[in-house]
């Protein structure tokens, strides 16, 4: 049932090249091999039904109508052995710590720009560089309280960072919902592993948010600011406010008075200390940013700059997850932390450099090209899969506005067996670990699966699914098996 899953030229998470099973997967393999294809399909349907009933859904917009969908859930979990995870964990923590210092710097002394490590123009002319943040004191210097770092594996099995998400990264709820679903569907199998628990990270997050309150109070009021129930990530917002025990509010529930933010409650106005906002910078405050925003709170930025409320993540953090700034992150890590980057970047070509541009244009059919400000898998070119006309379009766009684009060699993402029509076939995956406060990483993270055969795009807006992701501490027996295996290979 599993053997059709192995494809040449990319790393397979479950099997060695010679079809030997990786030791951490042995028990899962045994468990699933004992199930018939019809039973697997039934479990898969059951998961979809349950997600539907529980309302674990997201909204997609198509031709003015909005449709509620469940995120396709692939029942075969992804397993990351503890030793690999420790490396990943240290790597993403290091990265977020450095990016946080970078943000602090570019909105204050700008030493990294003076020293010419990152081009000044790239930062200060960036559309997400937030002038209102220049010189603004941020509570406890925390710009990035929640980060989602997208990780892929190259054909050699090395973990590489593909992208940083420092604005309002979403998807955290699926980590927990997927775990719960696996436990409901396969309780016996789950008991055979020592899976690192994920819930404690949420308690940490809850404490962390409260600790950011600028006011001296034993019981700060924390809210999650959502665009509302029609937002595609609304379930994420609901889940987090439930788990963190904070209020879920919309802009119209809040108001500002004397540079303080209040919530309209049945008992009158209550002062707000910390706002975990899940709306974009541009919509936060119609007085400071887009004046047509009805999602935000007039006067919010003024209250923030006066130091009476904490905003999570800080406005203007988006400049640090830009795809062009990304190319400089290894340097940023060395500059602030005086450490070597633990995780490598995917090689990235900056297209306003004439030499790099020439090379990329000559090799477009082997490249992935992305808009520097793009997200969600929209507006990108995957050279090897693109038609001649698409390649030509992108070539023209790049020449017209080289700064808008970056290019990377197409990396064949690792594959993982996924249930497709009752049997397991290899599908490309990535991983988004979430880093809280630059300190704590939720063990595992969200594994996204490109469900279309051969596709490299994992975004849920492009038909991607997800997997439960385990970090497991291998026991003696499994480690033993691993040694033998390595000898055999």
């Amino acid at each position: 049932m599993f053997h059709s899953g192995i494809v040449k030229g990319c790393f397979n998470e479950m099997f060695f090249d010679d079809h030997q099973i990786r030791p951490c997967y042995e028990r899962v393999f045994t468990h699933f091999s004992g199930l018939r294809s019809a039973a697997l399909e039934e479990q898969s349907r059951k998961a979809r039904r349950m997600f539907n009933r529980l309302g674990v859904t997201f909204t997609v917009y198509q031709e003015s109508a909005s449709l509620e969908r469940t995120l396709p859930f692939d029942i075969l979990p992804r397993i990351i052995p503890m030793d690999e995870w420790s490396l990943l964990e240290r790597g993403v923590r290091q990265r977020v710590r450095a990016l946080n210092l970078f943000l602090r710097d570019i909105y204050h002394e700008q030493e990294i720009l003076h020293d010419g490590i990152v081009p000044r123009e790239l930062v200060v002319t960036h559309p997400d560089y937030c002038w209102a943040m220049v010189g603004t004191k941020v509570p406890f210097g925390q710009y990035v309280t929640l980060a989602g770092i997208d990780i892929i594996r190259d054909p050699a099995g090395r973990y590489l960072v593909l992208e940083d998400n420092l604005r309002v990264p979403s998807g955290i709820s699926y980590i927990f919902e997927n775990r719960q679903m696996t436990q409901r569907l396969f309780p016996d199998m789950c008991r055979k592993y020592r899976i690192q628990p994920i819930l404690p990270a949420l308690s940490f997050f809850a404490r962390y948010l409260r600790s950011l309150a600028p006011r001296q109070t034993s019981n700060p009021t924390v809210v999650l600011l959502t665009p509302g129930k029609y937002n595609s990530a609304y379930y994420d917002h609901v889940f987090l406010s439930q788990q963190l025990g904070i209020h879920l509010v919309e802009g119209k529930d809040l108001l500002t008075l004397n540079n303080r933010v209040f919530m309209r409650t049945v008992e009158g106005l209550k002062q707000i200390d910390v706002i975990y906002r899940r709306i974009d910078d541009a919509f936060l405050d119609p007085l400071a940013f887009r004046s047509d925003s009805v999602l935000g709170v007039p006067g919010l930025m003024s209250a923030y700059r006066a130091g009476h409320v904490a905003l999570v993540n800080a406005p203007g953090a988006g400049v640090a997850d830009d795809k062009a700034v990304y190319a400089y992150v290894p340097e940023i890590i060395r500059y602030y932390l005086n450490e070597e980057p633990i995780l490598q970047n995917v090689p990235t070509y900056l297209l306003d450099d004439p030499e790099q541009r020439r090379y990329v244009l000559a090799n477009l059919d082997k490249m992935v090209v992305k808009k520097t400000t793009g997200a969600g898998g929209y507006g990108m070119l995957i050279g090897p899969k693109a038609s001649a006309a698409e390649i030509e379009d992108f070539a023209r766009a790049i020449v017209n506005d080289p700064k808008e684009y970056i290019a990377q060699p197409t990396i064949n993402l690792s594959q993982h067996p996924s249930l497709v029509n009752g049997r397991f076939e290899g599908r490309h995956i990535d991983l988004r670990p979430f880093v809280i406060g630059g300190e704590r990483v939720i063990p595992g993270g969200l594994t996204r699966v490109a469900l279309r055969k051969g596709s490299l795009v994992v975004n849920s807006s492009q038909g991607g699914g997800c997997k439960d992701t385990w970090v497991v501490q291998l026991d003696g027996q499994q480690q033993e098996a691993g040694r033998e295996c390595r000898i055999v290979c």
Partner: protein
Amino acid sequence: MLSCRHADSLIWLSRFIERAENNARILEVNFVRPFSGENASWEPLVAVTGNVVDFQRLYDEADAASVFDFLAFSEANPNSIVACAALARENALAVRERLPNELYEVVNRFHLTLRACAHRVGESVVYPFLDLVKRQSMIFQGLIEAILPHGEDGAFLRIGRYLERIDKTSRILDVVHYHPDAADEELWLRVLCSVSAYEAYRRSGGGRVTPRDVTAFLVHDGDFPRSLAFCADQALLAAQRAFAGAGQIPESVRLLEQLDRRLRYTTMDEIEAQGLHAFLQVILQENNRIGEAVQRDLFVEEDSA
């Protein structure tokens, strides 16, 4: 600490669930246990749900099929069972993070299930359909009692529930006004059944089914959970709890006190003297004003902390 928007959503969530359940009870009486003989009249059913105009716009005549479709499924009728389930779910979604997951799941399933079976109900499944609606509502009410903290959230849910019941019981009782033979015993039995009061009425000593006794029971009984006096009393308690932290006494609480007193102290002789229909119209108006007052109490702009 409950935001005003959430309070509003809680009220409407429970009003719409209650409305769906009441509609199911009314339909059950009329469709599962139809009037014997020629006496079936469908218009009053539409009048009970309050939009005769909508109905006339949509259907040529009032018969079993059109009335059932209108009250159970019509998307053009904002008070049809399917529409109520959808609106309940909209409101549950808006206040979702405050609801226990089990409670949201019930409301969500209610909506998804009804949407899936809308317009597909033949004669043989009328009863199971209505039974399903009542059952889902009961699970909803049960979960509220069983796992929702009995603080502000519960209080706003109860306000919605009891204001809705006052409305429905008044309207059902008022149906006799539209009926050709207001003294017909079967008519009054059906009134009792429509608010599921038949057994309770018998047990309370109502051997005879007379207009005066049934009216007295449904207006004054202090124990039956759908009588007007009981509902007003509960709504008042709920509002007092809901606005306990609000400082001055809000308008809605004052109006509820008035309604509570009116229902408690208006005697049957006084009701008969002014006519049941006129009395119920006053109750309905006051009840509407209370609903509006709650909105004002929640959304009046405050200018100081």
